[in-house]
C-alpha cells in the first residue's frame, strides 16, 4: 500500500498534470501574440483580453448585454419547462397523446430550429419576443423528449402497487408519475440550459438587438477584437456557470428522489 506522503505527492502530480496543459496553452498564446509572429490585431495576447474583460465589467458596459442574454435565455427555458413537462408526461402516459405527438417531435428534433429565425422575426418582430420564442421552441424538444422517455419508462410495478392501494388518477399523477419522471425531466432541462444560451447568443448575432451575441458581432465589425474576445469570455462563463449551477441544483433537488421513491 502507498504511504500517505506518496499519495499526497501523486495527488500533487495529478493536479499539476491538470493545470500545466492549460497553463502552457495560455502561455504559448501570450508569447506567440507578444513576439509578433501573428498579427496582434486578430490575435491579441491573453493578458490584454483579460484586462479588457475586467474593464468592461468594471465600467458596467458588459452588464446590460449580459442581463439581456440571460433573461431571454431563462425566460425561454422556463416557458419550455412549463409547457414541455406536461406535454412529455401526457405522451408518456396517454396512448393517444403518444400516437399524435411522438412522430411530430421526432421529426422536428433534427431540424435546426435556428433556421426559423427569419420566420420568427416576421411573426414576433425584431426585438426580444422573437428571440424568446425561438429559445422556447428549441428548448421544448429536449424537455419533451426526456420527460416522455422518463414517464414511459416508469416500472408498472409502482403503478400497480399504487392502484392496488386505491390511488386515484390525480393522486397517481402527483405522487407517482411526476416524482418518478423527475430525474429524466432534469436530464432534459440540463440539456436545454446549454441550448438556451446557445440560441440566445446566435439569435442576437443574427438579428441584433442588444445582448452578448450582438455586442460581440459589433465589436468584430468595428475591429475591436479585444472586446470581442472579452465578450466571448463572458458567453463562455455563462455557459459554464449555468451548467454547473444545474448540476449542483440536481443534487439538492433530487436527493429525496432516491430516498422516497
Amino acid at each position, binding site marked *: 500500500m502507498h504511504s500517505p506522503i506518496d499519495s499526497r505527492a501523486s495527488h500533487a502530480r495529478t493536479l499539476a498534470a491538470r493545470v500545466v496543459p492549460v497553463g502552457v496553452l495560455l502561455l504559448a498564446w501570450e508569447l506567440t501574440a507578444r513576439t509578433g509572429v501573428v498579427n496582434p490585431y486578430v490575435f491579441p495576447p491573453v493578458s490584454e483580453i483579460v484586462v479588457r474583460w475586467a474593464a468592461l465589467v468594471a465600467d458596467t458596459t458588459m452588464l446590460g448585454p449580459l442581463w439581456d442574454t440571460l433573461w431571454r435565455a431563462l425566460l425561454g427555458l422556463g416557458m419550455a419547462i412549463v409547457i414541455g413537462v406536461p406535454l412529455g408526461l401526457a405522451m408518456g402516459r396517454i396512448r393517444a397523446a403518444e400516437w399524435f405527438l411522438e412522430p411530430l417531435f421526432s421529426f422536428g428534433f433534427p*431540424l435546426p430550429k435556428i433556421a426559423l429565425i427569419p*420566420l420568427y422575426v416576421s411573426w414576433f418582430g425584431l426585438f426580444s419576443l422573437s428571440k424568446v420564442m425561438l429559445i422556447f421552441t428549441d428548448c421544448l424538444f429536449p424537455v419533451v423528449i426526456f420527460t416522455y422517455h422518463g414517464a414511459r419508462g416508469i416500472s408498472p410495478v409502482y403503478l400497480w402497487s399504487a392502484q392496488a392501494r386505491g390511488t386515484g388518477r390525480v393522486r397517481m399523477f402527483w405522487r407517482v408519475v411526476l416524482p418518478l419522471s423527475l430525474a429524466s425531466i432534469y436530464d432534459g432541462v440540463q440539456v436545454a440550459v446549454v441550448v438556451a444560451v446557445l440560441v440566445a447568443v446566435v439569435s442576437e448575432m443574427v438579428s441584433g438587438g442588444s445582448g452578448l451575441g450582438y455586442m460581440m458581432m459589433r465589436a468584430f465589425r468595428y475591429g475591436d477584437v479585444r472586446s470581442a474576445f472579452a465578450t466571448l469570455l463572458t458567453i463562455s462563463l455563462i455557459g459554464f456557470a449555468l451548467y454547473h449551477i444545474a448540476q449542483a441544483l440536481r443534487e439538492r433537488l433530487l436527493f429525496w428522489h432516491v430516498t422516497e421513491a
Partner: protein
Amino acid sequence: MTNRSGNALLTRFSGLLRLLPLLIVFAVWQVASTVGALPKWLMPSFFAVIASLADLVKSGEIVPHTIASLARAGAGFAIAVVAGILIGVLMARVRAVQLAMEPILMLIYPVPKPALIPLFMVWLGIGNFSKISVIALACLVPIVIATFNGARSVDPMLLWSARARGTSGRRLLWRVVIPSALPQIAAGVRTAIAIAIIVLVSSEFISSDSGLGYLIFSYGGVGAEDAMLAVVLYLAVLGYVFDRLYVASLRKAMAWHAFAH
C-alpha cells in the same frame, strides 16, 4: 415465408401510420389557409410552400446550395469523427493524454460553438475554411467525450482474455477496445450529426454567399416566405433522412453486438 412478408407489410403500414399525425398537421395548416383563418402575410399555405419547393428543385436552384452545405458539414463532420475517436481512445488508454485533455475539454465544452464563428472568420478568412473548422470543433466535443467514456469502460475481462492470448498494441485497440466502445461512439456521432447541421446553418446565416442557410436567410430577407419555408422543410427532411440512414446503417453494422451479449 408468407408470414415474413406479412410482417414486412405490417411494419411498412405502421411506418405510414406514424406519418399520419404529420399529415394531419399539414392538412390543418392548409385548411386554415384556404378558409382564411391563417392570413397569407402571416404564413403561406402548405401547398404554396410545397409548390415553391417543387420550383426550387425543378429549376435546379437548390442543387448547388445543397452541395455547398453538404460539403461544409461533411468535411467538418468527417474531421471530427477521425480526430474525435483518436483523441478519445488516446485519453482512455494513455493517462498523460487524459490529464492534458480533460481541462482543455472542460474549457471548450461550455462555449456555444456558433459564437466562435466570427472569431474563426477573423483568423481563417470568411470562406469555407473557417466554417469547416468551427463545424469540426463543435462536432469534436461530443465524439471525444463519448469515445473516452466508451473506451474507458471496456470490460476488463475482454482485455485480460485478449492479452492472455497474446494480443497487444494496435491489434488490441482495433479488435477489442474500439469495437466494444462502438455503441457509445455511435451515440456521440449521432449527436454530432445534429450539431453539424446547427452550426452549418448558423455559419451560413452569419456570412455566406451559398448554402441552404444562406438561401433561407436571403429569401426571408426579401419576404419570400413560401420559398424560405420550402428550404426549411427541405432541411428538416434532409436532417431526418440522414438521422434515419445513420441509425439504419448502424443497426446493420452492429448486428454482432446483440450476439456478443
